[in-house]
């Protein structure tokens, strides 16, 4: 995964540590969800969805390459996007917990995608106005793709929710199961506050209301009920992950760990 890269300074001065942390979070979110989605390839309910999920995977992988490449530059220790993807331990990953949750049925994957893409849409809309030009251009690019992801997931959630009693029940169950991972998406910590103060990143807490509104609109059409307020899981951004991430990384990193530097 190497190639000619974009230009422009990566680091922005005093906020470097926070900038690195933030960029890793975004890159890891896209990378880990790409890995989860590509597990569907060859297993999706029909060929069109197999191809659709592979396309989403590619977009997310592309985002993660840009973001991890940028993170490597900010860090300034010569680590490439590959080093960051394949040679970090699970506790060094900064992704939110929702993206590492194992695949269940197709409806579960569509609900996860809806929650995540609706969040990414709000985030990238704001981040594309960041005064960090590199983050802004990656966000502006990814935003266009995210609109397709969100539309894809929304269409499926409506079709399943407003479908047969069985598809409705399974979609509702998936929503209930995934809801506890949505709280973390809107937590703003010191890293974000520092970046927000310098106009580099939006505060996640500000994304909650518009996100919720977009989810309500889809759920209403899908005849699904928004899950009740409940305990929210958290910790992914600081490296406290569920056990599922370790298994995912074992598979994803196996080749590079076994044959360091292997290319194909």
């Amino acid at each position, binding site marked *: 995964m190497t*190639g000619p890269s974009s230009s422009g300074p990566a680091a922005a001065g005093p906020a470097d540590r926070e900038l690195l942390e933030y960029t890793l979070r975004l890159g890891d979110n896209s990378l880990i969800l790409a890995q989860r989605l590509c597990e569907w390839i060859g297993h999706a309910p029909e060929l*069109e*969805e197999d191809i659709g999920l592979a396309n989403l995977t590619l977009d997310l*992988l592309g985002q993660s390459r840009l973001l991890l490449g940028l993170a490597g530059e900010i860090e300034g220790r010569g680590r490439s996007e590959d080093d960051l993807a394949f040679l970090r331990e699970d506790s060094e990953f900064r992704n939110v917990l929702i993206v590492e949750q194992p695949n269940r049925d197709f409806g579960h994957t569509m609900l996860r995608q809806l929650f995540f893409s609706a969040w990414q849409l709000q985030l990238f809309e704001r981040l594309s106005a960041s005064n960090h030009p590199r983050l802004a*251009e990656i966000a*502006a690019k990814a935003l266009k793709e995210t609109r*397709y992801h969100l539309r894809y997931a929304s269409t499926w959630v409506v079709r399943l929710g407003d479908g047969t009693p069985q598809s409705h029940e399974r979609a509702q169950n998936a929503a209930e199961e995934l809801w506890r991972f949505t709280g973390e998406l809107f937590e703003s910590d010191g890293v974000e506050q520092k970046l927000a103060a310098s106009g580099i990143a939006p505060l996640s807490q500000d994304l909650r209301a518009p996100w919720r509104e977009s989810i309500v609109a889809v759920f209403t059409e899908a005849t699904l009920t928004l899950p009740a307020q409940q305990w929210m899981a958290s910790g992914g951004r600081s490296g406290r992950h569920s056990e599922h991430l370790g298994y995912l990384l074992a598979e994803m990193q196996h080749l590079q760990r076994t044959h360091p530097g292997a290319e194909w």
Partner: protein
Amino acid sequence: MVSAAQRNEPEAFAWQVLDNIEDPEIPGVGIVDLGIVRRVSLAEDQLLVELTPTYSGCPATDVIASLVSEALQDAGFGHVQIKHALSPAWTTDWITERGRVRLRANGIAPPQYTAASHEANLGPRDGVPCAHCGSTQTQLTSEFGSTPCKALYRCSACLEPFEYFKCL
């Protein structure tokens, strides 16, 4: 060996060379016509070519970069530097008229709307004119096709499947 064209107007000559490079995933359509080549400039003896990816994860990006380097080096440019420019983000609005004609000739319906339009925002829908017979009696079968930039359709008039280049 340096040709007269290259010596006198090296940048225009480079564009000519690039004009003959087809997109590896959309055979028959050139990377210039797709709007992937953003800028060509010569500084001292180094030729800088700016390329933009269609989608962030487009797997053809690296292949295109090496096709461009090889073609320009074969044409006599000694030092070719490829830069990937993300901004402004690629849009289907940059596909040229000739590109649209060639897409259609290769069984791919060109984008119907400008990227920022309300219609484009609604996503691919039924009724995109068939790339083969032009009928609008067509149905979307999948929002995603063989590459992220295309959707799949079938035509009820000529009964052929075809691809549609989505607005982006």
